[in-house]
């Protein structure tokens, strides 16, 4: 059994500290954000007089109070607080600072504001019409799309509508800014990207980066929602703190968080596909349109990943994908687990379902027919990257057998013919998810490892902990390298004064990048300790520094070999154990051993002390960059990823013909995660991601009013899966795969990929509905999410039309 999460034991007692759990200082103030309720309007007048009438309300700040009011990760296009014009409902306009939370919240209602409404753009459709785009469309193309489409024996065209998805991290955006001496600031933020938070705060206030430290202890969930969007709230708290010279806490309510912050981008994709009688795809022309909301945020990168995942697991010889990022008057949509991948994958999986339905074939056969293989050119993606370590065939083969797919499909189709109460559906879909940031410079990280005098270890990296267990994995890698148990190390809070210029903990890469850096730093120390241990073999114990320290009677041990300079965490490491050794010295179970001098083994902590007394550094820092990322964004060509995490899922659903309600009967997942550091933590990621994705494709419905103001902004109205919504049977297995030589210790990233497996639930719902007699010659129109209403509408569209 794997070790639990490194802070599970304090999570269950409530001792784990989150931002808002920090003790409130006596002089601390509380901030809240007054925001727009109009989609697109000029601000004619704002009057704070009445809000300021409450003696508990201390101050109100606006965008004019910042040194620089614009921020943005890719383009600096977004005001921290809107000044003369609002571009979405939920856009911040003022920061209200008060002695209590309640006073700040109630003061918001007393702000008087007058708008002059402008015409809003609230849908992708409208954006296309008015050509409201963030940047010009991008394109990735291979082969002769047009001509092969024309020549294809069969073809289909269609559209898929994919709505947004709220992160619903349990801990809403939270930050506290503490003003320090000499104009410095310390920010505690629930952020996936402390470096960006530091930089945004410093820039907004006109401070040098050196005067702002950002600390992230942990987050109550992030899922991408705190990658870019934690920063502006930190800047607001920081502004108030600097102005008031008092600590300021800004913790959003769930309602305000949901109204103000961006979601998973909605997409509306159009496709034309040519295929043969067997179902082999010959040519695909697909146009992706995403809703970015009012500002760019990360939407252009998200679109890129959608374009790079439009193939999912399938070789499509002629493929053109264009991506157009639309600007609308909604909250700025942002990173969310999968980062565009899910929207791409859902599109191709729907296409496959439609092809199979058209050919009256089992969709699994069409999928298998189109999979990437190792033969010829059928192993190369549309952007020219070779799919190495391809496990797709094996995954299909093993899961199809273990979940009894064939038999169940047969039974389902038979039963559906006469069951008037329920319809069942089944679907097996794959995922092939590219691991790495597609933006090359983000694929870097650094780590600081400190061995203390007593042999206990502290680790600091740029990774942030949001429940995924990145710190537990890093600690396990470091301690195993040193022959220690995990409890002898502690991963410290992420701070920008220890690890600077880091990347967000995102793209599933937290362990890959930071774990590799931590391992490299550890090995630097290990190499020095190894050389010392070797030298100590020749020195009688009574002459060791620990016996003679302070006397000056013995010469100091001097190390002769240069420090380790290595970027590959697998170099010099033995593949099975993942551990490197130097000078034949082994680190095991708290001991340091030379295999030829077993009798002279030294206890690790004793060796550490000896190193200190001989003035050998016990701390080290390492930098790691992922090699081989050569993706030319202009051409849309090259190696975008270090490797692919792959998996398959089979979901069976039951639809209530009375109401359209969906019940997930059974889910079987088989994932390829290479060789996990901590298998149970990985399994937790798989089940969590799948259920989160399940919410996206079924019950999670973002409902806006005609001003683009989100009305489903709390769990009473926005329904994430509850414990009753989990599949009745839920099997998760990992594929044995010892051959991912590309990544640290043969592991594979797990954070995002399994979310995409929830597409199988959506295709299973489609599969059930398409079996209705009415769909013999057509395919149901169903969007994501397949809410009960959408499902019932697809089952009996004319009954709905009666009332519309």
């Amino acid at each position, binding site marked *: 059994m794997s070790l639990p999460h490194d802070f599970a034991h304090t999570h*269950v007692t409530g001792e784990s500290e989150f931002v808002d759990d920090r003790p409130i200082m006596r002089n601390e103030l509380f901030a809240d954000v007054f925001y727009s309720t109009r989609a697109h309007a000029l601000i004619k007048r704002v009057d704070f007089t009445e809000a300021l009438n409450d003696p508990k309300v201390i101050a109100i700040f606006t965008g004019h109070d910042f040194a620089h009011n614009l921020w943005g990760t890719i383009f600096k296009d977004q005001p921290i607080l809107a000044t003369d014009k609002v571009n979405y409902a939920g856009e911040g306009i003022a920061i209200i600072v008060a002695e209590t939370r309640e006073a700040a919240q109630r003061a918001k209602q007393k702000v008087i504001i007058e708008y002059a409404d402008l015409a809003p753009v609230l849908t992708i459709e409208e954006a296309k019409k008015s050509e409201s785009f963030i940047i010009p469309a991008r394109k990735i193309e291979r082969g002769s799309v047009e001509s092969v489409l024309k020549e294809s024996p069969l073809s289909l065209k269609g559209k898929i509508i994919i709505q947004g998805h709220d992160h619903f991290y349990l801990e809403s955006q939270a930050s506290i800014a503490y003003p320090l001496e000499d104009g410095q600031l310390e920010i505690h933020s629930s952020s996936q990207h402390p470096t960006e938070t530091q930089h945004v705060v410093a820039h907004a206030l006109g401070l040098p980066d050196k005067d702002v430290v950002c600390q992230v202890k942990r987050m109550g969930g992030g899922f991408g929602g705190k990658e870019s969007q934690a920063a502006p709230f930190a800047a607001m708290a920081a502004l108030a703190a600097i102005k008031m010279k008092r600590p300021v806490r800004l913790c959003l309510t769930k309602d305000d968080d949901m109204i103000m912050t961006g979601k998973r981008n909605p997409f509306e994709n159009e496709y034309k596909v040519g295929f043969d009688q067997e179902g082999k795809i010959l040519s695909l022309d697909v146009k992706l349109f995403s809703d970015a909301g009012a500002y760019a945020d990360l939407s252009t990168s998200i679109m890129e990943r959608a374009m790079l995942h439009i193939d999912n697991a399938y070789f499509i010889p002629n493929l053109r994908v264009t991506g157009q990022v639309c600007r609308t008057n909604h909250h700025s949509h942002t990173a969310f687990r999968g980062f565009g991948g899910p929207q791409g994958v859902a599109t191709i999986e729907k296409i496959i379902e439609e092809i199979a339905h058209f050919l009256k074939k089992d969709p699994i056969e069409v999928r298998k027919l189109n999979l990437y293989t190792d033969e010829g050119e059928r192993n190369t993606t549309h952007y020219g990257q070779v799919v190495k370590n391809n496990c797709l065939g094996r995954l299909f083969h093993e899961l199809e057998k273990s979940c009894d797919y064939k038999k169940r499909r047969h039974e389902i189709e038979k039963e559906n013919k006469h069951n008037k109460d329920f319809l069942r559906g089944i679907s097996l879909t794959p995922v092939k998810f590219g691991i790495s940031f597609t933006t090359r410079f983000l694929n870097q990280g650094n780590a600081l490892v400190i061995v203390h005098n007593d042999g206990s270890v502290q680790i600091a990296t740029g990774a942030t902990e949001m429940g995924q267990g990145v710190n537990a994995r890093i600690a396990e890698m470091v301690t195993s390298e040193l022959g220690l148990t995990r409890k002898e190390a502690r991963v410290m809070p992420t701070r920008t004064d220890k690890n600077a210029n880091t990347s967000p903990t995102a793209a599933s890469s937290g362990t890959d990048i930071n774990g590799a850096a931590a391992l490299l730093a550890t090995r630097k120390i290990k190499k020095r300790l190894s050389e010392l241990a070797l030298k100590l073999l020749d020195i009688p114990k009574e002459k060791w520094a620990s016996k003679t320290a302070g006397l000056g009677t013995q010469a100091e041990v001097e190390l002769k070999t240069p420090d380790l300079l290595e970027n590959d965490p697998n170099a010099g490491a033995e593949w099975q154990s993942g551990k490197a050794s130097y000078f034949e010295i082994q680190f095991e179970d708290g001991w340091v051993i030379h295999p030829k001098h077993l009798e002279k083994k030294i206890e690790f902590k004793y060796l550490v002390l000896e190193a200190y007394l001989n003035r050998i550094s016990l701390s080290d820092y390492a930098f790691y960059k992922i090699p081989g990322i050569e993706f030319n964004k202009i051409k849309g060509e090259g190696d975008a990823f270090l490797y692919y995490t792959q998996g398959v899922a089979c979901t069976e659903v039951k639809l209530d013909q009375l109401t359209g309600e969906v019940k997930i009967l059974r889910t079987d997942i088989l994932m390829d995660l290479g060789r996990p550091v901590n298998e149970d933590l990985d399994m*937790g990621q798989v089940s969590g991601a799948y259920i989160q994705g399940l919410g996206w494709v079924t019950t999670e419905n973002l409902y806006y009013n005609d001003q683009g103001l989100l009305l489903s902004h709390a769990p009473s109205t926005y329904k994430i899966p509850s414990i009753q919504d989990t599949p009745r049977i839920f099997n998760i297995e990992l594929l044995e795969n010892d051959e991912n030589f590309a990544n640290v210790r043969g592991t594979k990233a797990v954070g995002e990929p399994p979310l995409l497996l929830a597409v199988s639930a959506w295709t299973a719902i489609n599969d059930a509905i398409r079996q209705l007699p009415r769909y013999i010659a057509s395919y149901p129109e169903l969007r994501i999410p397949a809410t009960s209403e959408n499902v019932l509408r697809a089952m009996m569209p004319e009954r709905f039309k009666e009332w519309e």
Partner: protein
Amino acid sequence: MRNKIIFYLNGIRKEVGAKESSMMLAEYLRYDQCLTGTKIVCAEGDCGACSVLRLFPHNQSVDSHNYVPINSCITLVAQLDGSSLVTVDALKEKDGTLHETQRAMVECHGSQCGFCTPGFVMALTGLVEEKLSKKEKTIDPQEAKNGLTGNLCRCTGYRSIIDAATSIDLDKCRTIKERFYSERQEVDLTKVYAESLLIETEDFFYYAPKTMKESLAFLKDYPDCRIIGSGTDLGVVHNKRRTQLTRLLSLHLISKLYEVDRNGDEVTFGARVSHTEFRHFLKDKVPEFSRYLDVFASPQIKNTGTVVGNIATASPIGDTPPVLLALNATIVVESMSGKREIPIDQFFLAYRKTAIQHGELITQVKFKVPDAKSHLRFFKYANRKDLDISAINLAMRLKWKGDEKKEIDELIIAAGGLASTPIRFLKTEEALKKSFDLEAAVKILHSEVKPISDLRASSAYRHVLLENYVRKFFSEASV
């Protein structure tokens, strides 16, 4: 007359005045008592992160014997008067040993980010308490799910949490009662419960008399005072800053109002009877009602929320009003000028407006248990099956004339979510009773409502659901 709220927090006696009493319990715990284990996420009782355990040892009800989970985010500290409370911060044994639920959550990886975890631990501990009191030995997966319906987790996908729950060794659990409740506490709280309470400051007014008479006299003089039952509705409205709970009358010290009873075929229940209690009571008497209450709200809400509160708040999508309409319930109200009975079909006047007049209080609701020949069916549709507000709910009661099932003797069709109040389909009922022609009746059915489109359902969907449910009911009842 007391002027302090008195309760026990993790075994320690607390006596608090207006300032603390007017706080929400979760805020009091976190920001006044520095017990930050309890988390606030939604502040509307919909996620369970704020779950704490409460014992209210005063009446012979389900929750008077055991510590049960409640939502601390929508509970005023004032409402804890006379209770004993345990929070996650105290759950670990003094020697550092984790409670069995905590151990299970750690070992089964039931916690990832840790933010929902304390709430899950407390809800699960509540389930353990219930199990121990029934001397049961194991927790099966469905029981785990039912016990944890009121808790949301966004990280784990619940799989590991279900594993944790089912791995709990009940033999290893010492009850919370054994650890945190004492005879001295019981004696003290009994004394507390025996005395009326009045907190009166400029900012906060909270009155809890011992008798109905005092309540009614007070209501007559202070018509602007709100009556607070469990506050599962008022607490939300307060947190969302749409109102401020400053002047309140609480009936929690009046024992009579906790009574639920069956006399012949008549069931009566008092104004303070909780959903949990009511569901338990109905199990063998009106099983369909009890089943319906299963998918109604979370354990935390059901443990405090009252059935009468669900009626009095007069929400058009309240879940019990259609059922009580179908059962022809009678609402008993009292005022200084006496008692009167309002048939429930005359109770809901307009959106959130009832037939209760100034100075009146609901003290009791009664209905006759339908006989064995009656067909009874209650439907609730919500966007998520469990722990969700209805988009539409429907309650139907039917009795055929004779065995051919061609003629109808009695029929009530009642619904919520289709108009500004819970409604009866009087014309449809009439038509069907005149002649059992379902096709014709369906047309009338639709003509009786003009449902709105909102975030829970479109108008069209509500029409389709209504018809589907009614057809389903008659097809079942005709067999």
